[in-house]
Structures are given as structure tokens and as C-alpha cells.
């Protein structure tokens, strides 16, 4: 029987997921990986074991299959000490504007699914009286922009959900962390024009998530520069903001 803490990573096959799992394993946590394609996660299981000599397990998890969430949680051998959701889908804004199915998938992948599964874990953690929940949201949720408001609105909903959950759960000994990565060089942002000084590698995001958990932070911008950028964007009067095309 191990005495190490357990971190469950939802959306583990993403670049930030892989980096987060490595950061926690390096800090001595056992790791449970969850994602849609279990076979694709097997090399990551081997990687974490070989690198950090920790226990690693893998689970199938589909964020759109909300009906399976209760049995997913019940099927875990042990309730984890921390759950980190990196699940998300950027989608294609242009398509989402006319394709309701695509828009709904973006909304469900970024809001409905992550909020429901983390809400479920929050109840378990509150019953136990301990635990940490990390939701990776987005700076895109701070204000809806012309170029990605379908994605941004879902992230805004997710951020609001985490904010309310935090207010309720903090009295019950459960920590809720909202992470807003900003630009991270990942598969999701491949081909996008990123602004160099505002862009970080996935490993930086992984380290920032671990740091936020260890220091019991509430809302974290992976790069602090983004806090300032988003503050300015939030303060722009609507009359000015609506003329911007970004």
C-alpha cells in the first residue's frame, strides 16, 4: 500500500496533460491518466513509470459521455487526492457560427462535461473533507471576442462554475483552482499566430499547475503577463471593444 498522494489527470493525452502528469509525478505523486483513447496513453504510462518510479494507472474517459461519469468515478480503485481537468476543444469558430452541432460540441467539451465531472468529484471530496480540484479554463473566457466566442463563452461558464464551487467548497476543506493558460505551444495552437513573449511551452503550464496546487492558489494565469493583458481587455468600454477584430 502506497502512501503517496494520487493525482487524476482528465484529458491526459493533451500536451498540457502530459506535462502536468510529469510535473506531479516528479513531485512524488502517483498518477492516474484518463482520456478517450486508452491505447494511446499506454506509452505515457510507461514514460511516467520509467522516469519517476511512481504508480501509474490509465482509465477510459469521454467528456461528452456524461451518462458514464458516475460509473467512471465509482470505478476508480481509490478516490484521488487531486483531480485536474485539462479537457477542452478549441473547435473552429467559423464553422460553429452556422453548424449547431459543432457549436454544441465545443460548448459541451469546454463547459458541460468538465463542470459535471468536477462537480461530481467535489461532492466526494466534500464528503471526505479533503481534496483539490483543478479546472483548466482559458483567458478566452474572460471576455467574449469576435474570433472565438463560442469557445470563450463555454470557458466563461466553466470559470464561473469553478468560482462558485470554490466559494462553497473552501469551507469544506476542498481546494478549487482555476487555471488560465494563455498561449501555450501545443497541438491545439499549432498553426496559430502566437505572440512570442506571451507564449509558453507546455512544460511551463504543467509546472504552474503543480505550483498552484502546492501553494493553494485560487485563480492562476500561467504567465502573470496575461493577468495584466486580460485586465486591460476587460476594462475596455464595449463601444471600443466591439470594433476590435481579434
Amino acid at each position, binding site marked *: 500500500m502506497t502512501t503517496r498522494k494520487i493525482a487524476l489527470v482528465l484529458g491526459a493525452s493533451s500536451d498540457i496533460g502530459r506535462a502536468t502528469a510529469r510535473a506531479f509525478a*516528479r513531485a512524488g505523486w502517483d498518477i492516474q491518466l484518463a482520456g478517450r483513447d486508452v491505447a494511446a496513453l499506454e*506509452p*505515457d504510462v*510507461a514514460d511516467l513509470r*520509467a*522516469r*519517476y*518510479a511512481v504508480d501509474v494507472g490509465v482509465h477510459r474517459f469521454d467528456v461528452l459521455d456524461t451518462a458514464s461519469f458516475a460509473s467512471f468515478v465509482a470505478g476508480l480503485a481509490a478516490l484521488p487526492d487531486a483531480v485536474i481537468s485539462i479537457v477542452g476543444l478549441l473547435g473552429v469558430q467559423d464553422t460553429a457560427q452556422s453548424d449547431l452541432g459543432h457549436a454544441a460540441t465545443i460548448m459541451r467539451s469546454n463547459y458541460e462535461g468538465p463542470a459535471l465531472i468536477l462537480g461530481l468529484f467535489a461532492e466526494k471530496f466534500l464528503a471526505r473533507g479533503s481534496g483539490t480540484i483543478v479546472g483548466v479554463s482559458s483567458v478566452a473566457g474572460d471576455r467574449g471576442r469576435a474570433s472565438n466566442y463560442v469557445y470563450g463563452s463555454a470557458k466563461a461558464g466553466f470559470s464561473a462554475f469553478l468560482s462558485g464551487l470554490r466559494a462553497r467548497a473552501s469551507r469544506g476543506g476542498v481546494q478549487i483552482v482555476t487555471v488560465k493558460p494563455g498561449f501555450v505551444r501545443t497541438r491545439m495552437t*499549432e498553426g496559430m499566430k502566437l505572440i512570442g513573449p506571451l507564449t509558453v511551452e507546455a512544460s511551463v503550464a504543467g509546472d504552474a499547475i503543480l505550483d498552484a496546487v502546492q501553494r493553494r492558489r485560487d485563480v492562476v494565469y500561467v504567465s502573470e503577463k496575461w493577468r495584466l493583458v486580460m485586465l486591460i481587455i476587460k476594462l475596455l468600454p464595449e463601444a471600443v471593444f466591439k470594433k476590435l477584430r481579434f
Partner: protein
Amino acid sequence: MTLVSGWGRFPVVDTDLVRPRSFPAVGEAFAGASGVARGNGRAYGDAGIGLARTVDMTAFDRVRSFDPDTGRIRLEAGMLLSDIIDTFGPRGFLPFVVPGTRFVTVGGAIAADVHGKNHHCEGGFGRYVDGILLRTGQGETIELSRDENADVFRATVGGMGLTGVILEATMRLRRVETGWIRERVIPAANLRDAVTALDGGDSSTYSVAWIDCVATGENLGRSLIYLGEHARADELPADAAPFSRGRDPRLSVPVDLPSLTLNRYSVRAFNELYYRMGARRAGGSHLVSIFPYFFPLDGVGAWNRIYGRRGFLQHQCVIPQTGAREVLGEILERIARRGDASFLAVLKKLGEGDGLMSFPLPGYTLALDFPMTPSILPFLDELDRLVVAAGGRLYLAKDARQSRATFEAGYPALQRFNGIRRSLDPDGKIRSRLSQRLLDEVRP
């Protein structure tokens, strides 16, 4: 299309840059176009740029297996040496061979058969590689070792990625007690003393000389020689951490500096200060962390930008042992006379090479940086003539400009190497800008 260059930022080439995330996607990357795998882009010239397509391998950074009893590791070839050091250093294991930067991939290190400060006694990177998973230009995936496909193994170590894409590798790591080096600094007043000190350092695991290229006359070749051994745990002071994680560069060069920043006065002042500070530390031995010892320039991010937008060239040659002192003296004299002195000049002893096309041969290697200017090209051609006449050669991982004649004179195994390439890749799918410039058979 994307503009891509090597670390020296010359040449800059338009290429179709792709970053696959699965082995099947690596195969798709070569559909309909010739190209080459690229690691972390630390080759200086055109070795990591494909003829049409450039396949970035850095997404493949997973460890397959590790045996803590033997230090044997199997990993994906896009893993950085810095990652190996940060992950396995605290567990008491380091790569046997590290080049001057830790930000290179394992695949790149095999392809260039990189050498470190220990080449004179422990050989190159390839000596510690026991297996390679290679995807050939024909799309076959084959396992290479000293027993299995041995000729392809020997061609792939030092083969500049031209035998195919290195997907995975099995290698041995060195067991160490600490992440510290016991260093001894020996000042040498001139080239003769420097060569004598390096010869005297043959029994040291690590040895390297930093040459002041501005010094002339009787000071020509004035150097500091750094000898090093891995420190044992009982040699550390009680308060020292046995292993500290490598920090990301604290300083970074954020923009291209104007080309005037480096001139003979600033370099002369820097070198004078550098030599005096080093000479003051001479004498007894002291402890330094592996990071500044092995990777002094990794402390400054994007240092290649100090040469400005035009980029720079590194000239790294090896001169066979016999008569090396005279040839090195001639090269240094010409550089001092020319005046746009190298910011860096490193002199190091090498032993036998391991791969068919590996750079090292028993002798001395000299590495010099020059800002890119039109007049530097004919000057380096003159240096090449001295190198060829002495039976030496140039390091392909650093090269952006040598001629075919220089290359062919330095690498007598070329015909055999190209024969192996032809049999693995009859359609010529694996081609880089470097191979086009130096190796590929010219078709009418």
C-alpha cells in the same frame, strides 16, 4: 512554408515544416516530398533542414523503459539531453557524452555522433548507443545494433540523419554520485603550452581549452585549460545538494543585437578579463555544478542572436595529431591577423570516431565563431585548404559552407556511406540541404 535555419541562422531556407506526433504520421510526412528529420535545431548550418520537407521530431519525448540497476534506457529520439539530465540526474545517472549544449535531442546527438570534453578517453555519443529504431526512406522500420544491421548502425551513428529517421534509441547512462565536477584550471601562455597541457590531461576524464584568439605574437594561442572529474559524494561540502535541477536560462537575448556590438575592441576586452579571471582560479581543484561546467552558454538563452540578423558561421575542424601544432598555429595566426576575432574558440583533443561518417579522428579539434560577412567565405576557404593539406576534416553539424572538394577529401568513407543510403532509400526520399550541398549524387 516556413523559414527555417540552424543555430547559426545561416542559411535561412523556406521549407515545409511538420511536427508529427505518431510514428505513422512520420511516414505520412515523407509522402510526396523528400526531407530529413530535425531535432531541436541546434545544428549550426543546413543539416537539419529538409530538401522540401523538414520533420520536427521534438514531440517524441517519452521514455520507453529504464533499468535502474544497469542504467540502460530506451527512449524516443526527440527527447532532449536536458530532459534526461533533469529526470535521471537526481537518480544518479547522466549521459556518458554531452556536447556543449544540453538542448539537443537524442536523435540529433546520434546523427551528429556528438562529442564532449571526454572524447579523448571515452569516445563519442554513439559509443553508448546500443540500439536504434530507424525508419528508412522506403518506409521500413528496422532495428539496428552492432549485431543486427551492423553496417546501417555504423552509418547511422554520425550519418546526419541521412540513413532515415531515428525513432527510438537504447543507450547506457553513466552512474554518478553527484551532479558536481571537480575542476582544475591550468593557464597556458601560448599554443605550445596549451597543447602540452592538453596532452598532459590525457588521463583526465574531461579536458578542454578555451583560446584567446585576439592574443598575438608570443601570446598566440593563450588559453585556459579546464580538466574535470565527476565529484564523489564524500567530496561535497555538507551543505551542498548532491544534484540541483538545471535552471532555464536566466538571461536571454530578446532581440537581434546590432552587428556592431561585437568588434575587436569589445572582444579583446572580454577575452582579457576572461583570461585573468580564469588564471586567478588556477592551481588547486574546486567544485562546479555540471551545468556551468558542461554547458556554459546554456545559461544565456538565444545567445546566437548576439551576432545580429545576418547570423554567424562556426568553423570546426579536426587536425590529425602529427604536425597539428604547426597547422593550428598557422590557423590562429591568420585569424588574429584578420581581426574579426572569434567570440569563442575551443581547442579539444579527440580520439577515434565510432561511426562511418563520424567527425572525430585522433588529433585536435578547433572551433571558431565568425559573424557572417561576405569576406568571411573566401577566408574560411583558405583555412579549409590548411585543414585538407593536414589530412583533417570539418564537422558537419557545424557546417554551412564547405565545398564538396573539402568534404570529399575529409571523409574517405563517403562512397560506402552513399552505397548504404542507396540500398535503404533508392528513391532518394531522405535528403537535407546539407546532403544536397555535399553528398547527393548529382544527376544530369
